[in-house]
Each structure stands twice: as C-alpha cells, then as structure tokens.
C-alpha cells in the first residue's frame, strides 16, 4: 500500500461520498431490509449520513480522528435504528484509534478500522458468518493491507457472501431458514462505505 498521507479533508470527502452512495442506494437497502428486517435501513442510513455531512461541512473537524469521532457520535444520535450504534461505534472507535494526528497513513487507517470493526463485533456480540455487517467489514479491513480498491472489492464480495447465510443476529434471526437467500442490508451498506473510500482515494 502506498505511503499516502490522509488528512482531515480526505476524511470529510469520504463521509460525503459515503452519504452520496447511500442516497443512491437507499431504495435498494430498504428493499433488502424489507425481505428480512424492518424495512428502514435505507431511510435510517440516509438520515444518519445526511446529518454527518451537514455537521462536517458546517464545522469541519481539524484531524482525521476528529472527523470520524464526530461522525460516529452523529450517527448514534440521528439514525434511530440498530445501524446507528453499530456504525457510530465503528467510526468513533476508529477515530479514537487515529488519535489527534493531523495526517494518518493508510496503514494507520487500516489498524484504526481494525479496532473499530472489533468494537462492532463486541457491541453486537457477533462474528463473521452470522450474516451481519461484519461479513463485509472484516474482509474489507484485510483488503486494506493491499489497497483501497482491494478493500472495496473484498467488502462487496463479503456482502454478496451473506446471501446463502442463516441470520444469527437481529430481527432477521427470528426468520431462521427463511433468512437464507437474501443479502444482508447491513453488509451491503458496509460495502458502500468502502466503495466510497476507494472512490475518494482514486
């Protein structure tokens, strides 16, 4: 992975690109969620990331860590569904791991996201294979060791790998066998987050 230094502006662009991707795909996210969840994932994520963009544009935080910490806090308070605390924890914990450096390397971001993903697993009590966000996030962080593009590809592939899985967490788990055959909405939005990261790094 190249030694590019990533500054606060890069992270603001990431959040903006993620919000745009979620906007574009909101209908699909809600559709996936109506199959096995409560049909609010698209609108919840849209509301959350719109609030994040509004905040980082109004008062751009000074460091990469501060951008992600503030974004995470905003998601916890504005999403309204389980994705709020989960994505909020992901970004906040990653932001905290980045500390207050003005710039971070891609390697530092990989390590930070690793800590964020661990915190998500702990919060939800889930592991890869449970048909959750982690099925996209864990391979994405591993892919970051190679490149942003590899991470985005791994996240997308991870999201698709949830189709044949049996849901073990959340409302979808009540469906048992009937959860099989549907792509997990949380894994799908996680893939969008990494697609947006690759997009701004191009």
């Amino acid at each position, binding site marked *: 992975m190249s030694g590019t230094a990533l500054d606060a502006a890069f992270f603001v662009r990431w959040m903006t690109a993620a919000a745009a991707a979620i906007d574009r795909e909101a209908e699909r996210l809600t559709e996936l969620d109506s199959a096995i969840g409560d049909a609010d994932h698209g609108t919840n994520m849209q509301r959350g990331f719109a609030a994040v963009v509004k905040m980082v544009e109004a008062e751009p935080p000074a460091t990469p860590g501060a951008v992600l910490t503030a974004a995470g806090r905003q998601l916890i*308070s504005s999403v309204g569904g*389980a994705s*709020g*605390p989960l994505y909020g924890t992901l970004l906040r914990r990653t932001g905290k791991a980045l500390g207050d450096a003005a710039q971070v390397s891609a390697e530092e971001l990989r390590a930070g996201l690793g800590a964020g993903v661990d915190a998500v697993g702990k919060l939800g009590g889930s592991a890869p294979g449970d048909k959750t966000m982690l099925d996209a996030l864990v391979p994405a962080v591993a892919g970051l060791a190679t490149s942003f593009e590899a991470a985005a590809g791994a996240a997308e592939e991870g999201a698709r790998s949830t189709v044949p899985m049996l849901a073990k967490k959340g409302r979808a788990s009540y469906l048992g066998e009937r959860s099989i055959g549907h792509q997990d909405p949380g894994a799908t939005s996680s893939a969008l987050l990494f697609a947006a990261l690759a997009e701004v790094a191009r």
Partner: protein
Amino acid sequence: MSGGGEVSGQGPAGGAQALVGVVLVSHSGPVAESVAALAVGLAGGGAKAPVAAAGGTPDGGLGTSAELITEAARRVDRGAGVALLVDLGSAVLTVKALLAEGDELPEGARLVDAPFVEGAVAAVVTASAGADLDAVAAAAGEAYGYRKE
C-alpha cells in the same frame, strides 16, 4: 420525585436518601410509557423512585433515540445511579454504545439485564423502597427466573 418522603426503613441504603432512577427504553414510545405507568402503579404508595420512559424516535416512530435516552436518564438522576432497562434491537445497542462512550449518560448509569416488563416492575418497586443500584439491578435480573409454567 425523590422528595423527602418516609422510606419504609427496609431499604438497604437506609434512610430517606436519594433514590435510584429507572429509565425504560423501548423500540416503541407507547410501550415505554405504558410499562412505566404499570411499574409506577404497582409500586404502590410511599416514596416513589423517579421513572422515565424513552421509547421510539422523537417524531413518534418505531426505533430508538439516543437523545430521548440521555434526556430521560438525566431527568431521573438523583445521584444514586440510574438503572436502564431495554427491550430489543436498537434499544439494547444504543444504550450499550452510549455507555461505552462514557460521557453522555449520567455517572452511575447502568444497563440492567432483565426482562422488560417484569424487570421494570421489580426495579421500580425496589428503587422506591430505597434499594441501591446493585440491589435494584439484582431484583430486576431475578425476574428472569420467574417461570410462568
């Protein structure tokens, strides 16, 4: 209201000290409100522990609001700790995420692992009797063992 009402004297903390607050967090506003009313009603007379409902989203929809939870916890905080009881999904995760961050909920706020309705009644009754946070949490958790068949 904590008030200076006579505490029955059986409270482990003893005396009319500050009572533990109870917050009921549900995916649904009406569920949280109704369970709060039920628990307060069953707690009977005497000193009443402060109880607040934090259900649904601020616009009345289904979901969980970090703001409503934080606000409710501050409202019932008398300095003796706050027991948060939750129902499912985002209610559990939001309270856990807020506690993990450490600075939004009042000092001494605790997620209590208990069945929502039965646990709420147990928590409000024990808190109203002057029990401390450990005893309130234990009483609420014991409601898991209350078999119905």
